[in-house]
């Protein structure tokens, strides 16, 4: 069980707005998150990952406090075991496909499985600059899964994939994440693509 109750000021074009979320997520569940641009969806994911610090509130995962403003607890991102798929991928230009995964894990069998899942096994020695947009996006997803995260945070993870690839990948991801028992939060501007997968939704105003 993940319990998040946070407040964070957001910079907006028209003055300031405050992001307020109070929500629980069951372990192993998948939640789709949507809402207008600038409503704080990405910030919310970053708060969970420890990349952004809220002004108030707490983030509690099972019995462990990841963040608590009153108790001054703030676990660094390294200790939170989240997988984060960045909207702009944030791939490492100096690393090949394989090196991206090897940087995150030493589990060779897991790397092989991920490469097959993302259909990147034939492109292992390529660097991001020599991958298509869809291949880059798949690599970003695989890299985030490499650490077998407890919470999987995806920011518009399927935007560059064609319909067929998206359907196949989502089916594979569902199996894999269920196996890991990972709790998944997906920001999507096209929430219908997650019908049949997501068991909950969070709408940002």
């Amino acid at each position, binding site marked *: 069980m993940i319990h998040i109750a946070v407040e964070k000021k957001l910079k907006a074009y028209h003055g300031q707005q405050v992001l307020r979320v109070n929500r629980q997520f069951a372990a192993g569940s998948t939640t789709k998150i949507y809402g207008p641009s600038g409503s704080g969806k990405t910030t919310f994911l970053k708060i969970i990952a420890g990349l952004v610090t809220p002004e108030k509130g707490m983030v509690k995962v099972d019995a462990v406090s990841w963040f608590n403003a009153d108790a001054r607890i703030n676990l660094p991102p390294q200790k939170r075991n989240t997988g984060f798929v*960045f909207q702009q991928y944030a791939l490492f230009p100096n690393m090949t496909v394989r090196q991206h995964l090897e940087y995150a894990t030493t589990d060779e069998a897991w790397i092989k499985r991920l490469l097959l899942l993302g259909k990147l096994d034939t492109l292992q020695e390529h660097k991001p600059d020599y991958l298509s947009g869809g291949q880059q996006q798949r690599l970003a997803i695989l890299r985030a899964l490499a650490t077998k995260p407890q919470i999987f945070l995806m920011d518009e993870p399927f935007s560059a994939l064609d319909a067929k690839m998206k359907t196949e990948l989502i089916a594979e991801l569902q199996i894999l994440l269920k196996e890991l028992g990972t709790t998944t939060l997906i920001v999507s501007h096209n929430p219908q693509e997650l019908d049949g997968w997501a068991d909950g939704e969070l709408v940002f105003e």
Partner: protein
Amino acid sequence: MDLSPIWLTLKLAGITTLILLLVGLPFAWWLSRGRSLFKIIIEAIITMPLVLPPSVLGFYLLLAFSPQHGMGKWLQDVFNVQFVFSFRGLVLASVIYSIPFMVGPVKSALQQLPSALAEASYTLGKSEWQTFRYVLLPNIKPSLLTAAVLTFAHTLGEFGVVLMIGGNIPGVTRVASIAVYDAVEQRDYGMANNYSLILFAITFVLVIGVFVFNKYQAKSPLI
């Protein structure tokens, strides 16, 4: 022709570049992260050698390290180390004089990398040092090389600072730029020309090397 000023110059530039790579990179990294008044002041101080006349810098270094008083006296008394009119003094002065050439380009390059690169690395459980070593540094390689070559070339061209703190001792502190000045004073234009040509050739080749490397980097498909 006495080539010792050329060798001394190359040795000085090499050691200075090496020290600045070791000290300057972590320093540039620190400066590239966040902004505070303290960092602004530190950055201003290390930028001073860019705008100050080298003789001013050399003068203060001479005062600071003079074995008659202050820090220089303490170093002399406690460690029996003298910086004035010695090669190690030249190294110290060169490191201070060239620090902006190493720190400036590396800092800007680090700041231009998307912050998501480091963030992605952190979420993979990697420490700040691992992130710096395996993600950030490799992705600023062209700027790193440019900074190292600029530092090297700038040290080759030092004159005022070196003359102030090192003087003109053959084989110890007489670097090529001082040998040129010395030769001109003695109206030995042939000798001045020899040293000058060698310095010109070395720096020209270095700069060409950087251009070629950076072009190759941009085009390389896999490496």
